[in-house]
């Protein structure tokens, strides 16, 4: 059987364009990454989409790549984009906000491309009571927690904060570096220790570098 060159090229192009798994998923009836991302942006469907994107992003590199391009744009919108809600339960309320869910996804999937967008909100605290253990674990600081989860790839952004910001943002960047605990993080902390003026932060850095 003879196959013309034109037909062969067409088949190859079709094969390539349908090779991304999220397009395949859509063809099979499963929502694609763009479809899920649209749901993530909707106040009504954002939390369910977050869970689906988390599952998909863990197993599908294309979904992860898609989120790496899209999540920073959503994170840039800031907390003021969150819908007003009467929901009493705080965790439910957080997850009713597309912006919050974008941050959580960026951290859970360790999307380094989101680090610059996250840095802007590193010291932003969700509304919540004072519970020291939870406070210390950054639960109330979603962007700081996401940067910690991203780990080493977030270190340049954290160093930029250290060099350019003061007050709470600076302290939070030190804390996140302390949590990362990697060799790279300790090297960054070592540099910071030489010029860190805050005694409390100096102590925190020294403690982190001991472990």
């Amino acid at each position, binding site marked *: 059987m003879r196959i013309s060159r034109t037909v062969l090229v067409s088949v190859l192009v079709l094969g390539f364009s349908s090779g991304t798994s999220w397009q395949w998923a859509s063809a099979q009836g499963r929502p694609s990454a763009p479809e899920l991302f649209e749901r993530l942006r909707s106040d009504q469907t954002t939390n369910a989409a977050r869970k689906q994107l988390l599952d998909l992003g863990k197993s599908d590199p294309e979904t992860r790549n898609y989120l790496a391009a899209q999540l920073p744009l959503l994170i840039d919108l800031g907390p003021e984009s969150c819908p007003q809600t009467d929901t009493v339960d705080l*965790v439910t309320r957080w997850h009713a906000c597309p912006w919050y869910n974008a941050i959580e996804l960026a951290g859970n999937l360790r999307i380094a491309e989101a680090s610059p967008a996250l840095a802007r909100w590193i010291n932003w605290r969700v509304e919540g009571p*004072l519970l*020291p*253990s939870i*406070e210390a674990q950054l639960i109330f600081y979603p962007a700081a*927690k996401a940067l910690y989860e991203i780990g080493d790839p977030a270190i340049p952004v954290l160093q930029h904060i250290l060099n350019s910001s003061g007050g709470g943002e600076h302290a939070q960047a030190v804390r996140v570096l302390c*949590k990362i605990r990697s060799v790279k993080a300790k090297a960054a902390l070592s540099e910071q220790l030489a010029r860190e003026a805050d005694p409390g932060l100096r102590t925190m850095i020294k*403690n*982190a570098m001991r472990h």
Partner: protein
Amino acid sequence: MKKLAGALLPISFPPALYHATASSSSRFSLPLFPAEIFGDNLFAADAMLLGEDGTAYLTGRSSEQSPVDTVAAVDTSNGNVKWTANTTSEPDLSTVTSDGSLVFQSAQGDNATHTLIADPNGNISPLFANSDGSDAGPVLTNFSFGLHIPFYWTLGIWFASMPDGGLGAITGSGKAETEAAPVPVSGAEPQRQHVGSPTATITVRFDGPKSPGDQLAFSGDGSCSQTLALWYCQNLSWSFYVEGAATVSDDAAKWKVSQNAVISRSGDAKDSQGVLRHIRDSFNSDILPGDDDPCVLNDSRPGCEGIVSVQQPSGQKSIFWLDHPGSLYKASSDAVWDSLNETGQFTSRVCNRFGICKRVNWFILLIVDPGSMLDSAQSLAGLGTGPNP
């Protein structure tokens, strides 16, 4: 001890108890309709137990149409009914003790299953009682399947199903053995332990200096004092500085401290323009398992760096931990609390690797009056569940 010979056969209708021996048989009328037995139901309690003195303890219906709602003690030598007792729901018989008391389970008016003991005269009380006579538990709820009656082991120790579905060894009945241990009442939780296994006591303190052996320091966001009390850290926080303390029978390092918190808040936040915004919310740390557990040395969880709030050195028997729950002065990034009513209910636990745990419930009530004024008179903290949110 009187030996019983022969066989006992309860009949539902007409209600009677037959006592047959090798040489004779007797028929005794019963004041209840004995419960029918449906096949080999492994999850049904025995409908009749026999005491060492020949007393039979039967469950049955108080009338032909009623559910199984009665327990009766019958002398099988002569058919005399020693006592009868009505129960709220079907009783599950467990054990007859050496003094002729009957241990059984029955749901009470609270729709929870309680473990009870009827003395030889039919007087019923909780098997494990607090000092005021109330039931110290375990009180079982949501158990719709299976048999959960307690089993007596030895030396005053019972094995009993716990509310969390686990099995606990409980000391406390003064009926079964003369050497029974007293009922633990702290936190109203029976002591769950294995014989000869480690034990613990636990409490939380709310005022005064820290314990002499406590080397910990309050640290972390919003802290400004080292004395146990309610403190206002200027423009930073209002919080209760508390100390948890546990004493274990073996080694402090072998136990883990954990904690969960349920917080409800209601109040008005005031922004820089003086505009008030009402806030009402709640937070339950159970949704984030382990996240309200105090930080320990070298804790790898995010945020525990530089914060050590548990002291449990190997070789010692005392465990201490610190906490300072409350509220930040700022309600959000652009507003401060003008007024606030916050309740917090906490459960702190120490558990060892065998699952032996001791817990204590405690609470906080934080009142901030309009104008961001701490209401020290109305605010309080203590053991127990505290006021409802």
